[in-house]
Each structure stands twice: as C-alpha cells, then as structure tokens.
C-alpha cells in the first residue's frame, strides 16, 4: 500500500467517539475532568488545523527567514510552557534557558537536516521544522522535569547544602548530588524510550511515515536518527541550562538564594 488514505471530515468526527468515552468515564467516575477534556479537544483540533495551514504556507513559501522565525517562536513557546510547569519564581532562569535552547537545538536540527539527512538547502522547511519540533518538544519536557527537580531539591535540602558550604564546599560541591539527580531525572525518559522503541511502542514519527506509505526500512532509519538526536540534544541542553541555573541559585558569596519551602 503506497497511497495514503485521506481521512474525510465525517471520519474525523467518528474519532470523537473516543473523546465521548473519556467524557462518560469522567462523568461516571466523578473525576471532574469533563471541562479539561472539552478544552483539550477544542485546542487539539484548532491548534493542529492552524498548524496544518501554517505548515502548508511555510512549505510553499520556501523562505529561510520565515523558517528560522518559526523556529524561534517554537523555542519561545517551549520556554513559556516550562515556566508554567516550574514553581520557582524568585530565581530568573528564563533568558539563559531560551538562549541555550535556541543555540543547541538550532545546531542539532542543522546537524540532522544538513549532515545526517543531507537535505539541500539545510533549512528546507519540510525537514528542518519537524526535526526542530521533535527536538524542542522532547527536550522541553526533559528540561521542565530537571529544572523543577533542581529547585524543589534545593528548597528541600537547603540545610544539607548549607552544611556542606559551611564545611568548605564550593557551590558546585554543595549541590553536586542535587544537580546529578535533576539532570538524570530529565534524561531518563529519553533513555527509556531507546530501550522500549520497536518492542513496546512504535514512535509517532515512524508510525506517521508508515501510515503515509513510507517503506518501514526507511522509516526506521529516520527513527534511529531521531532517537539519537533526542538523547543528544536533551543531554547537551540539560547540562548547559542546569549549570547556568544552578549558579543562579547561589549569590556572589556562594550563599544559597533559593527560599525555604
């Protein structure tokens, strides 16, 4: 089967049955999720339709600056989402996070689309934007987990960190365990995904390619590149962002600035 089967609007509406099941479950079990499911459904449909039209336009326009502009907006949105998930409001971390994500994800997307896939020009939107989207989406979740873990552990273990500082530790030594734990917590989902891929689940991108008629042997190559890219970009961005944020948790005199809980 090489031809993709188009999903008609009535067929799309049929898929709403799944949402209906979720709504009924929430109602019967009194989960109180009906409002969230409704908003989620509306947002999924509207956001994806908007994205579909936007991508059609961008793919047609074939403009370098438009492609890069979309990339910047995607990174900015990711930082905004991370900000919503992280409770800490005292230590400013948004600007370094944005700049690190922007530079490291750009290099990753560039490396993959230009050198690994070998597409010309390197910014060909059909390759560059989905690649960047996967990197940003995956690393965004990892960073949100890592940053939140770092701040919460700094708050919880404040006395232990200060005890080490008082015994002559520098700020890196005093927070080494917390730092390691936070980076690991962010990276574990990507590493687990490498363990389960092909056995437990077929990733979204590969499923999409197969459904669109791509030979599975080609689809797996793309997926392998994507899996490696996601682990690598998550590791690079986590280490850089977390090192900057950790420094910001301490003042000039290496005094801990994170307030107790």
């Amino acid at each position, binding site marked *: 089967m090489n031809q993709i089967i188009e999903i008609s609007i009535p067929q799309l509406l049929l898929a709403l049955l799944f949402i209906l099941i979720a709504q009924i479950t929430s109602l019967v079990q009194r989960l109180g999720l009906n409002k969230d499911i409704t908003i989620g459904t509306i947002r999924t449909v509207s956001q994806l339709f908007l994205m579909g039209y936007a991508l059609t336009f961008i793919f047609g326009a074939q403009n370098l600056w438009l492609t890069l502009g979309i990339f910047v907006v995607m990174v900015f949105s990711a930082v905004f989402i991370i900000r919503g998930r992280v409770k800490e409001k005292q230590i400013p971390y948004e600007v370094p996070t944005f700049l690190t994500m922007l530079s490291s994800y750009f290099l990753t997307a560039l490396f993959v689309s230009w050198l690994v896939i070998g597409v010309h020009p390197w910014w060909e939107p059909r390759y560059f934007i989905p690649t960047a989207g996967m990197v940003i989406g995956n690393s965004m979740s990892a960073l949100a987990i890592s940053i939140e873990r770092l701040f919460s552990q700094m708050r919880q273990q404040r*006395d*232990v960190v*200060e*005890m*080490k*500082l*008082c*015994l*002559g*530790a*520098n*700020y890196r*030594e005093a927070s080494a365990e917390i730092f390691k734990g936070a980076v690991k917590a962010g990276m574990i989902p990507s590493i687990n995904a490498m363990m389960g891929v092909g056995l437990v689940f077929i990733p979204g991108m590969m499923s999409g390619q197969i459904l669109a008629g791509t030979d599975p042997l080609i689809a797996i190559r793309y997926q392998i590149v994507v899996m490696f890219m996601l682990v690598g970009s998550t590791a690079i961005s986590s280490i850089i962002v977390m090192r900057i944020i950790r420094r910001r948790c301490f*003042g*000039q*005199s*290496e*005094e*801990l600035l994170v307030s107790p809980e």
Partner: protein
Amino acid sequence: MQPLLEIRDLSFGYDKGSRPVFEHLDLDVRKGECVVVKGASGSGKSTLLRLICRLNVPRSGEILFKSKNVAEIPPPELRSKITYVQQIPQMTDATVRDNLLLPFTFALGQHKAAPDDATLERMLDAFYLHGVSLDQSALKLSVGQKQRLSIMRAILNEPDMLLLDEPTSALDSDSAAMLFSIIERLNTEEGKTLVIVTHSEYQPAVPQARSCTFRNGKLECA
C-alpha cells in the same frame, strides 16, 4: 592586639525596603574568646552568625576577619576558617566516618591529611559518643549525638573560629550538659574562639567568656 573578627556598622534586612532586622551593629571578637550572644527569638542572633560566614549578605557595614573584609575572601576558604554549626544538625545518608571526613572530600580539604580511624575513635570518646561506631549510619543517631558529631566534624576541619547556633535548643538536659562541657573544653584546652548564640541562660564557665544581648535591634555587650 588586633581582634580576630571586627564587625563595623552592620545592618541587615531580608528584602529591599523591609524593616531591618538590626542596624549599625558593632562587635569585636578576640582570639580565644567565648562570646555568648543572647536575645529573644527573631532578634537577629542567628542572622548575625550567618552574616559572619556569608550565608547571608549584609545591607551595609563590614565584617573583617584577621583585618580582611570577609567579602574578599573566597567563600569556601572563609567558611573553613569560620565554621558555622547549624541549629539542627545535618548529616548525609552515609556512615559516621564518611560524615566526619566530608570536609576532606571537597577541593579545599583534599590537600589536608584526613584523620585515621584511631584518631576519630579517640575523638568520638572525647565528644561523649562512646559506643558510636564509625561504620554505622549517621542518620540513625539521636539529635544530641548528631549535634556533638556535627561540632566534632567542624573541629576536624581546624577552623580558627566556631559559630554555634542554638547548639542545645533540641537537646534534653543531659545532652545539653555534655555539649556545654565540650564547648568549655574546646575554649579552655584547645583555645578555640567561639561565638555561641542561645536564648537560654547559659553562661560558659570559662575565663574568656563574654556575654552580649540583642535589645531593640541593638547588641549590648558586657
């Protein structure tokens, strides 16, 4: 003789624009002295100790240690010379030995010779920690034992000055008596300079003792 520690016109408040905890505070501590700082809860006693070792930064004023502004001393070096022992003793999830040798694992302490087990065991006895094994978990000790262990750990780092924050606040009377005895020995026998914050009526039985009290944001010394 030049004081070991000189505090000049020190003011501190938590947030910009908030009421200061204290203002224009002056204090000299000479080598070998045992200064006891008293005052009501929230008067700024613990804050004063935290400012000396720069766990907090003052609004204005200066603190000199051996005539050098503490702000200019690299923080790890400053804190290993002036070691602050917290009110609630903190141990890592490791053995008593690993907790005691913690300062020797940091970059600053790696060049120092770590004490051997025989030395540590002798010190455990001197700190009334008979029966405590170097191999047991430090987290399983009582609060009183942890408090003595945390002072012992600070001493192993050979500081010039020890800052003890309410060292007996969580202890029963027997444990408190043991701790007072240790504090007095550290001062008289080992010549350690001590600044002790307490809200109790404790007066160390040592010749070099001096008492200061926080009253209405001012520190009055005898």
